[in-house]
């Protein structure tokens, strides 16, 4: 046990510091409880006893760990343990009873005393384990909770420590918690184990690494582990005999997950171990979920593109034979139109009309699939220009219906130029198509709303019942039969165009009192056009 002895000697002054800290807490918090008016005076004798026993422990620590006290470090530590276990036991009993009786803030203070006792207790128990030979009875470990309670599966853990007693103790402790523990006595041995085990099924999932080792130090091993791609993300807990802030900070900087100071509390070791393992598993889960999500997004995108391509190809291919039908009908009409009887002429008119409607339907389908196409960049488009182009396309319907179309000053918005023309054309076209008894009056306006413009197309037509407000925007969601021809795609196209540009399309209407279709669009940043 000479190696353990040397390690103890090295850390003797540090040990004093570590033991004084929990004692400070016991003394301080028992003092605070004594001063607290909310604590019944009945507990004062117990609190005074805690205070007295803690002072006694302190005196014994000062005695045994003083540089003036002669003797071998290991023996002094053993003597100290024997010396303080009785007063400590008394404090533990009182603290336990106080925790049961107190409540509110005083309970918190009692718990702090209990926690400090735990730290001292683990010193008494752990150092005894150091002094046991490796072959001796198992060290006094706290009864572990069954693994099923923690929800953590056993993990492969590699212990790297040059001190055989420490190594043995850690391996035993880890096995006790149900983990598969392996050990290495030097950096190079550890790295070779890690390299070979990285490829096996029972991989190492966590590393416990001693900072101070001869030859290759723990810090060097840590740096090596962090540079190995096959070990990316493996949690490393550093263990050190010295409570050195700088060393701890350095290890954390180099990528260590935790830093534990020897002699450590078995409960603390277990908690750190499990939190590091759980963190690693959560990270893995997170990575797996992110991957799945990316895959799903990618699949969805591809399916959408396929559908888009299918729709546009189908529209093109449908137009082709239809054009043959229309051309043939036209030729037939030129050649034999004059010879047809009234009934024949009526049948012929139905065929021509069918072909025309079919053609409209196909071009609308094409427009609909194009409106959902790739998100090309939006550009500033003057609404007025787009509207005028749409009105030009609608000139025949306007002339026939005698519609009066007026518009206010219209802004420049972010859109695709062709799409905006289509949008106005469909909305104004609908306003004309679904007109009432009187002459169509259509007004287009714009109003500013924050970063957006709200454009509206108001008519004095038939109007729409509120219960159809959703249905009209769905593909083929027509409300009318063949009395008013249409593909049933007009508003679906509009909705797609507006949505693709980041806006919203909706309708406000009362049956018999006309409709107003509104859509929002981003204002063009470089222009400032006036509103209504």
């Amino acid at each position: 046990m000479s190696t353990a002895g040397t390690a103890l000697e090295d850390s003797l002054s540090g040990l004093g510091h570590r033991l004084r800290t929990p004692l400070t807490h016991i003394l301080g918090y028992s003092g605070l409880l004594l001063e607290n008016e909310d604590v019944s005076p009945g507990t004062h004798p117990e609190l005074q006893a805690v205070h007295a026993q803690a002072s006694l422990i302190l005196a014994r620590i000062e005695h045994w760990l003083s540089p003036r006290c002669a003797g071998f470090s290991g023996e002094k530590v053993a003597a100290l343990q024997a010396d303080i276990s009785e007063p400590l036991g008394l404090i533990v009993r009182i603290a336990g009873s106080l925790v049961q009786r107190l409540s509110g803030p005083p309970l918190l203070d009692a718990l702090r005393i209990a926690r400090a006792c735990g730290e001292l207790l683990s010193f008494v128990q752990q150092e005894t384990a150091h002094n046991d030979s490796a072959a001796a009875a198992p060290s006094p470990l706290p009864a572990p909770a069954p693994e099923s309670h923690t929800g953590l599966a056993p993990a492969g853990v590699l212990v790297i420590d040059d001190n055989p007693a420490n190594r043995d103790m850690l391996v035993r402790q880890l096995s006790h918690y149900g983990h598969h523990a392996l050990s290495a006595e030097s950096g190079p041995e550890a790295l070779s184990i890690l390299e070979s085990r990285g490829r096996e099924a029972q991989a190492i999932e966590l590393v416990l690494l001693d900072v101070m080792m001869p030859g290759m130090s723990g810090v060097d091993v840590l740096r090596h582990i962090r540079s190995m791609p096959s070990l990316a993300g493996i949690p490393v807990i550093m263990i050190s005999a010295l409570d050195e802030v700088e060393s701890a900070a350095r290890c954390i900087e180099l990528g260590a997950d935790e830093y534990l100071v020897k002699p450590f509390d078995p409960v603390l070791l277990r908690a750190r171990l499990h939190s590091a393992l759980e963190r690693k598993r959560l990270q893995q889960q997170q990575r797996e979920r992110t991957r799945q999500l990316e895959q799903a997004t990618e699949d969805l995108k591809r399916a959408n593109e396929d559908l888009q391509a299918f729709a546009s190809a189908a529209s093109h291919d449908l137009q082709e034979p239809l054009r043959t039908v229309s051309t043939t009908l036209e030729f037939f009409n030129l050649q034999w139109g004059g010879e047809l009887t009234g009934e024949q002429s009526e049948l012929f008119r139905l065929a021509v009309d069918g072909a025309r409607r079919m053609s409209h339907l196909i071009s609308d389908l094409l427009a609909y699939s194009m409106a959902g196409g790739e998100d090309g960049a939006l550009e500033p488009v003057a609404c007025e220009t787009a509207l005028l182009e749409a009105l030009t396309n609608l000139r025949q319907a306007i002339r026939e219906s005698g519609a009066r179309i007026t518009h206010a000053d219209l802004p420049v918005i972010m859109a695709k130029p062709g799409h905006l023309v289509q949008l106005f054309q469909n909305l104004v076209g609908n306003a004309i198509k679904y007109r009432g008894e009187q002459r169509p009056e259509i007004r287009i306006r714009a109003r500013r709303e924050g970063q957006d413009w709200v454009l509206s197309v108001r008519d004095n037509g038939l109007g729409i019942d509120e219960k159809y407000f959703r249905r009209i925007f769905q593909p083929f969601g027509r409300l009318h039969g063949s009395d008013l021809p249409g593909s049933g795609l007009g508003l679906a196209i509009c909705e797609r165009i507006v949505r693709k540009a980041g806006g919203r399309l909706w309708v406000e209407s009362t049956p018999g009192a006309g409709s107003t279709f509104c859509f929002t669009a981003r204002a063009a940043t470089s222009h400032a056009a006036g509103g209504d």
Partner: protein
Amino acid sequence: MARILLVEDNEMNRDMLSRRLQKRGYEVLLANDGREGVDSASSHLPDLILMDMSLPVMNGWDATRHLKHSPETAAIPVIALTAHALSGDRDKAFEAGCDGYETKPVEMNRLLDTIARLLQGRGTP
């Protein structure tokens, strides 16, 4: 009532000591490390400083030296708190400019006496 700046990195020590001082009516300012301690002392100019010696970022000796070299904080009494009961620490603390010295765990009555004595020297209750 006097304002005391407590520079201490251990959370429990900070909690415990500040509560005990507040109970005696002192106003307590807190800092977690030496650098924070120096910054807080310069901006709040407390009446007295309780300085743990083993602090992260900047240790208590350096922080005290810093305060004692700066004209606006030089007159603020500093009581060193140390976990080391070695006499070398005591000399080192006084060398750095500390006005008082207490070992941890703090003996509360003695600490309160020291605080009162040093504050009286400054004319603050």
